[in-house]
């Protein structure tokens, strides 16, 4: 069959297109026919099918995600909310910050290096598309069992890919996570986040306004990569001679993306850009339909003008290609020449492919024939919305009844010591230095804090020292035990991590990684997690500015743990006040902030010592988190603390060991009255941090906590060459260091 034009589609209403192979449901196809008033052309079907896919349309998650808007707390800081490429927050002094987390899970399993690399590339383009200069990246990762042979294939490849791309772009990597759990064996999670900075007046939105304005594609040539269904359209049904398998994995070119960043920023600086959109999932289909539908008019595109890497591509394939490192800008006719000049300066290929029209149609032409004639809103915004059935899993009660509090506990000091060593050396608690030293932390010369600090911190203004901090957290084990609480715990931990470094938490982005939405149990986990996160953000006053949903993380019947990953962004008015994790000086007093309860459900201890997952996760008290945050920020501002570390996985002992190893200074700890040593060391109660207070500040610090009603307990002092728990055990720093630092290299190197 030759070219399927709009005219042809009108004349041949009975031709049945392969909608099922493209992933559309029968009723979805019928809706397309209804919208158009005729059957779609192949090119139109290509566009609808990708734009109405789960990934692009959020059809299963939309009804739940609405809560982020409905429950959004009043926040003066929010300049651009959910719905744009990334949210934008005011951080003062005329600066705005944009940030977002996305997933690149599946491709990273198939081709770890390129999958992870292109994940970084994609999230960075979202940031540029807002008008911002990207300033840092983070990479929350979840892998299969640490000792599984396939983990040795996937993780080093993923790390090399993230580093390979981010390092080459010149973006410091300032945070992330590495979590191992067998549930991720066939579905590792590779999430990537980026932060960008701009002046308020530079915020750009994805819209094509102004009749006669030109649509310019620039960046890499379009190739046949990342085309799923289009090749079915193009080959099996329309032209059997074509190769039917196009690669689903793409190779990234970070060098090209670096040039894209520079030339985009130069064009912004000269105010040449009316609207801009990156080309990510669904490629040109997405960029043109979104630009057009967010603008006032229509758009006309000459597909022949798209620079190609492979001249045999069909128009359907060009529309669906997900080739990396491409952008689309809308530019006034008088400024087109200058825009093209800047692209040429940076050796970036740029071509005018269309213009904004005064109609309301998106029309696409190929060899002079019209192959697409649609209302762009129906493609970009009117996708199907599903209220999928959800049901609390039948195993949930039994899981929660299997209380971790009943597990045998260590009964002697020696036993306690052995278990401490075991936890500190376990893959999830061990130092991730082998991984993070493959990332550039220094580039751009503004990094204040990076791994292994509680949050990453970047100076954004040299004059004043204004800075931003970011932390990402998630705990699939907690979320499995109770998805509502689990999501709030992820939020609480990221919030706490930011506050611990002295920054004020402002806003949230998230990446929601779950199994199949067609499984009611998974859908229930998903709905509960969103409800928890939305409620939590409302209570903490930190709006969700954007994020990403990744579903179908499932091997056969087995879904991953529900894994909401939460990123919290904070601001600090002078980075000189930042509080580091490392103990700074011998003799400083150690205080534990917050309440410690017997909470072991989902804990590191239960996993490492008993391979157990059951019971309830720690309780969440967000008012307490907020108070703790305020105290940590005030203490940093007033110079009352010299080091601080939030407590999370592994409990107090893990935090103290990390601060001690980083500072090269030991600690003497005393078990406080009313607690047994085991609970003191291993409980994972939320809302806690440990701080080191210079003796001169002791009174002032205690008074402040007392006045605000935050429980504060003196637990010891920074001292010596070991971590010493009075009456229980002493562990030399050397021994702890070996335990903590050798695990990951032994598994991966």
């Amino acid at each position, binding site marked *: 069959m030759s070219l399927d034009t709009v005219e042809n589609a009108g004349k041949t209403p009975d031709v049945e297109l392969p909608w099922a192979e493209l992933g559309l449901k029968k009723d979805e196809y019928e809706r397309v026919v209804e919208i158009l008033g005729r059957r779609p052309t192949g090119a139109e079907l290509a566009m609808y099918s990708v734009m109405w896919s789960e990934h692009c349309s959020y059809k299963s998650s939309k009804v739940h995600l609405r809560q982020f808007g409905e429950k959004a707390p009043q926040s003066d800081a929010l300049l651009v909310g959910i719905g744009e490429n990334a949210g934008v927050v005011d951080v003062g002094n005329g600066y705005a910050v944009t940030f977002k987390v996305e997933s690149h899970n599946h491709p990273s399993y198939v081709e770890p290096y390129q999958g992870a690399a292109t994940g970084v590339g994609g999230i960075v383009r979202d940031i540029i598309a807002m008008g911002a200069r990207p300033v840092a990246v983070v990479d929350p990762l979840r892998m299969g069992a640490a000792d599984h042979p396939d983990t040795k294939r996937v993780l080093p490849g993923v790390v090399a890919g993230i580093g390979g791309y981010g390092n080459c772009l010149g973006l410091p990597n300032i945070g992330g996570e590495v979590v191992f759990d067998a549930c991720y064996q066939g579905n590792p999670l590779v999430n990537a986040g980026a932060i960008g900075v701009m002046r308020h007046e530079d915020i750009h939105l994805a819209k094509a306004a102004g009749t006669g304005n030109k649509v310019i594609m620039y960046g890499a040539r379009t190739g*046949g990569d990342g085309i799923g269904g289009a090749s079915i359209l193009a080959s099996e049904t329309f032209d059997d001679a074509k190769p039917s398998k196009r*690669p689903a994995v793409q*190779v990234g070119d970070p060098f090209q993306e670096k040039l894209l960043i520079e030339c985009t920023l130069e064009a912004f600086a000269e105010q040449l850009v009316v609207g801009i959109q990156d080309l990510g999932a669904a490629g040109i289909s997405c960029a043109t339909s979104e630009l057009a539908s967010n603008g006032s008019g229509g758009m006309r595109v000459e597909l022949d003008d798209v620079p190609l890497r492979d001249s045999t591509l069909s128009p359907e394939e060009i529309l669906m290609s997900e080739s*990396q490192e491409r952008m689309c800008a809308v530019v006034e006719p008088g400024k087109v020449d200058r825009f093209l000049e800047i692209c040429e300066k940076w050796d970036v290929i740029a071509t005018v492919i269309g213009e904004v029209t005064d109609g309301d149609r998106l029309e696409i032409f190929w060899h002079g024939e019209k192959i697409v004639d649609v209302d762009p809103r129906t493609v970009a915004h009117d996708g199907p919305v599903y209220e999928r059935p959800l049901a609390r899993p039948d195993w949930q009660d039994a899981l929660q009844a299997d209380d971790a509090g009943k597990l045998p506990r260590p009964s002697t000091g020696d036993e306690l010591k052995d278990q401490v060593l075991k936890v500190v050396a376990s893959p999830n608690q061990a130092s991730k230095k082998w991984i993070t030293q493959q990332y550039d932390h220094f580039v751009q010369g503004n990094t204040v804090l990076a791994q292994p600090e509680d949050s990453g911190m970047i100076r954004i203004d040299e004059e004043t020292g204004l800075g931003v901090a970011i932390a990402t957290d998630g705990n699939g084990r907690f979320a499995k035990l109770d998805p509502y609480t689990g999501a709030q715990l992820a939020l609480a931990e990221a919030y706490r991590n930011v506050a611990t470094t002295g920054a004020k938490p402002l806003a949230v982005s998230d990446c929601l990684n779950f199994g199949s939405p067609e499984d009611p149990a998974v859908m229930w986990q998903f709905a509960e997690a969103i409800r928890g996160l939305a409620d939590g953000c409302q209570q903490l006053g930190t709006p969700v500015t954007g994020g990403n949903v990744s579903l179908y993380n499932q091997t056969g019947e087995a879904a991953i743990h529900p894994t909401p990953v939460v990123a919290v962004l904070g601001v600090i008015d002078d980075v000189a006040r930042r509080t580091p994790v490392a103990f700074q000086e011998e003799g400083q007093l150690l205080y534990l902030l917050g309440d410690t309860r017997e909470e072991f459900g989902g804990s590191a201890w239960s996993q490492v010592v008993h391979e157990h997952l059951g019971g309830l996760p720690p309780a969440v008290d967000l008012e307490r988190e907020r108070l703790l945050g305020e105290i940590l920020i005030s203490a940093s501002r007033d110079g009352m603390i010299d080091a601080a570390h939030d407590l999370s996985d592994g409990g107090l002992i893990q935090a103290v060991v990390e601060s001690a190893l980083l500072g090269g200074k030991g600690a003497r700890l005393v078990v406080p009255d009313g607690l047994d040593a085991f609970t003191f060391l291993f409980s994972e109660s939320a809302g806690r941090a440990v701080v080191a207070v210079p003796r001169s500040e002791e009174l002032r610090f205690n008074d402040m906590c007392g006045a605000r009603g935050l429980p504060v307990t003196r637990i010891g002092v920074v001292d010596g060459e070991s971590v010493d728990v009075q009456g229980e055990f002493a562990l030399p720093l050397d021994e702890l260091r070996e335990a903590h630092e050798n695990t990951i290299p032994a598994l991966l190197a």
Partner: protein
Amino acid sequence: MARVVVDVMLKPEILDPQGQAVQRALPRLGFDGISDVRQGKRFELEVDGPVDDAALARIQELAETFLANTVIENFTVKVEEPAQESAVGAEK
């Protein structure tokens, strides 16, 4: 002892940023007339014992499972006959 060479190249439809960077530099160096450059990997394996069909089958498998990722790369396996080697080029 014999040498087996495994050449691994990106599939033609996959972007080859390295090859492209080389090609784009050629005009600046004063080289015209080269319309495409692809850059891949060459593995030289020194095999103990005879390179019989069984040995080659195993190397074929090695290439497929380890030296190349066949999602994005093609490979070829060749036994190198020392005499024939540098057909035109001189080894420098």
